[in-house]
């Protein structure tokens, strides 16, 4: 035991483990059989000790312990309990099999050595909290760490943004700032525990990686000005949501159905908004992704309908300017690129099926928008710019919808009317073929081969005829039964004719197999409480 202290100037986790094993020598597996409680305690010991052992990977000194471990192994083998997985054997295995090399370079060994203690102490403390029993075996190691418990507890609360920042900057290699001891310790420990490369997300999935927003000193004056300008820009996306920009004069006509369609009142509530935004920003400058979307969406929620009556040309110029300024505020071309990718994604999504893809797109947009300082503003302005260009007429509405709808969850109920209206604009293009394009895409996907356009067109024609046949059949079936409305019985008859439903397989079986629970509840009568059956037969 004395050797331990001589070898290692600072007690590392490995040494502590060693100590545990040494001190717990008296409790051999043989004796455990006699004492049941002891066995339980030993078993409980393993989760906490495992937690202890994980940060040991950083330890470089193995030679000293290897001889001991071999000796220990022999001891264990002689004890003869190979079947019974004892904590001792587990610990041994962990120490033996844990990779020797750590992801940290050897030079950093000295510095992080004290830091994991902090982590360990906090973890031990947490582990002790989790285990209700006071385990005597853990007493000796924890007494050492008790002194460090207090600072460990305080430093355990680490700001996520700081952590991310340091993770990205590969902090474990450079742990100079002792002030960030806690942060670095946590980062180092976490990186050690995961034993993963330092930037897992950014390497594999650049689109989903959460890079911290680049922070600049916010110039309040310029910011307010930008807000005032962009609040106008936010007004316009409310219109572009519904109709493409080309049909400007009809905007007002369509917006008459809107609850807040007051063309002249538009600008009056605007001065109120920048104050809102400023307050929001002042609160959480470090976590920009949360504050701005909330406020900007609140704005757009209120100014949902802002007609483009106020000199579209002027506003276009304004927006051109403030889009540039906004882009400056955001401060990186990366964000622009992200917005563009988001737009391109939105475009790609437009060509595909609508509702099925929108949640995905919105989630992606959310990640990207979470990055930027004022994602809403940027997207709205840039998409307005896009809308100016005739080619991007169509993608203009959907990216805003996806972005707007994705960001906050609370204003979501207010979003539904604008969302519904975008779908209203779709049937103008091609009412018959829009639905089929989704199936054609599915077909091409399942074909697993590249397909010619003509082939896809033929597929579309066949699908069209097939669905027409289906609907004709349904109509005839309902007429056959002397009805004017198609009912589920007609559908069941149709499925019987198709061979999906037969004497072996009934409709209810198919419903159970393929439909989600909500639809199943609607279709299959089920008895609920109070002797009520739903759906009523």
């Amino acid at each position: 035991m004395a050797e331990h202290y001589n070898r290692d100037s600072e007690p590392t986790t490995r040494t502590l483990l060693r100590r545990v094993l040494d001190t717990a020598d008296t409790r051999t597996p043989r004796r455990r059989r006699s004492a049941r409680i002891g066995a339980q305690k030993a078993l409980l010991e393993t989760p906490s000790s495992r937690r202890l052992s994980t940060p040991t990977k950083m330890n470089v000194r193995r030679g000293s312990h290897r001889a001991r471990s071999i000796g220990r192994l022999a001891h264990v083998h002689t004890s003869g309990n190979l079947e019974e997985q004892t904590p001792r054997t587990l610990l041994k295995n962990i120490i033996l099999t844990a990779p020797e090399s750590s992801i940290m370079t050897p030079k950093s060994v000295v510095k992080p050595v004290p830091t994991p203690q902090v982590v360990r102490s906090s973890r031990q403390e947490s582990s002790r909290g989790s285990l209700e029993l006071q385990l005597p075996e853990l007493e000796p190691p924890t007494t050492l760490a008790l002194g460090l418990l207090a600072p460990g507890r305080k430093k355990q609360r680490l700001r996520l943004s700081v952590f991310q920042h340091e993770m990205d900057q590969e902090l474990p290699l450079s742990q100079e700032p002792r002030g960030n001891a806690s942060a670095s310790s946590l980062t180092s420990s976490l990186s050690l525990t995961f034993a993963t490369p330092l930037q897992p997300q950014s390497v594999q999935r650049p689109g989903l990686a959460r890079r911290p927003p680049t922070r600049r000193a916010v110039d309040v004056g310029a910011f307010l000005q930008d807000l005032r300008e962009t609040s106008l820009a936010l007004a316009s996306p409310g219109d572009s949501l519904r109709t493409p920009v080309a049909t400007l004069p009809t905007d007002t006509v369509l917006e008459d159905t809107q609850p807040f369609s007051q063309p002249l009142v538009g600008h009056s509530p605007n001065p109120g908004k920048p104050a809102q935004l400023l307050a929001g920003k002042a609160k959480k400058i470090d976590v920009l992704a949360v504050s701005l979307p909330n406020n900007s969406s609140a704005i757009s929620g209120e100014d949902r309908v802002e007609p483009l009556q106020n000199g579209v040309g002027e506003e276009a110029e304004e927006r051109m300017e403030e889009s540039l300024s906004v882009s400056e505020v955001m401060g990186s071309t990366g964000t622009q690129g992200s917005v563009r990718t988001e737009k391109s994604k939105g475009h790609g999504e437009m060509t595909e099926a609508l509702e099925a893809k929108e949640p995905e797109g919105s989630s992606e947009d959310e990640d990207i928008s979470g990055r930027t300082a004022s994602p809403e503003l940027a997207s709205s302005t840039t998409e307005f710019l896009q809308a100016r260009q005739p080619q991007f007429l169509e993608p203009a509405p959907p990216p805003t919808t996806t972005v707007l709808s994705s960001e906050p969850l609370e204003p979501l109920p207010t979003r539904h009317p604008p969302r519904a209206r975008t779908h209203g604009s779709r049937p103008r293009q091609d009412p018959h073929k829009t639905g089929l394009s989704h199936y054609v895409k599915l077909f091409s996907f399942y074909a697993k081969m590249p397909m010619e356009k003509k082939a896809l067109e033929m597929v579309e024609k066949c699908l069209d005829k097939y669905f027409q046949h289906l609907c004709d059949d349904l109509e005839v079936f309902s007429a056959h039964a002397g009805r004017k409305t198609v009912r589920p019985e007609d559908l069941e008859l149709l499925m019987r004719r198709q061979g999906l439903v037969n004497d072996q397989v009934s409709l209810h079986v198919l419903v159970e197999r393929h439909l989600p629970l909500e639809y199943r509840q609607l279709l299959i009568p089920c008895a609920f409480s109070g002797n009520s059956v739903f759906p009523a037969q």
Partner: protein
Amino acid sequence: MKYFAFLLQRLKAAVHYTVGCLCEEVASDREMPFSKQTIAAISELTFRQCETFAKDLEMFARHAKRSTINTEDVKLLARRSNSLLKYITEKNEELTQFNTEQKTKKKKKLEDDNTKSVAVAAAAGKDDS
């Protein structure tokens, strides 16, 4: 059970024979002989299709909440091919016409019988008196 299988076999044989006769007729018309496999395939096909038809007809009748299969059910079955549907409807109309004619004839006959009997009775009465 065995008897049922035997009946089935007999039924299939009957269908096969009828299909063979029809094919011979068509062959003599078009001057193109039919191979035996073709005739066998056609007869098997007709037999299975008849089974399907029967099941569908029963389904249609049940769908219309009836217990007897109607001409409406048959028309529903044949709606896919237009010519067949036309043919069936025409036949149906003919049959209905025939039925109505039969009914009128029967009625007339009855009436005639009645009048005749009355007349006979009257004559008999007269004779008697």
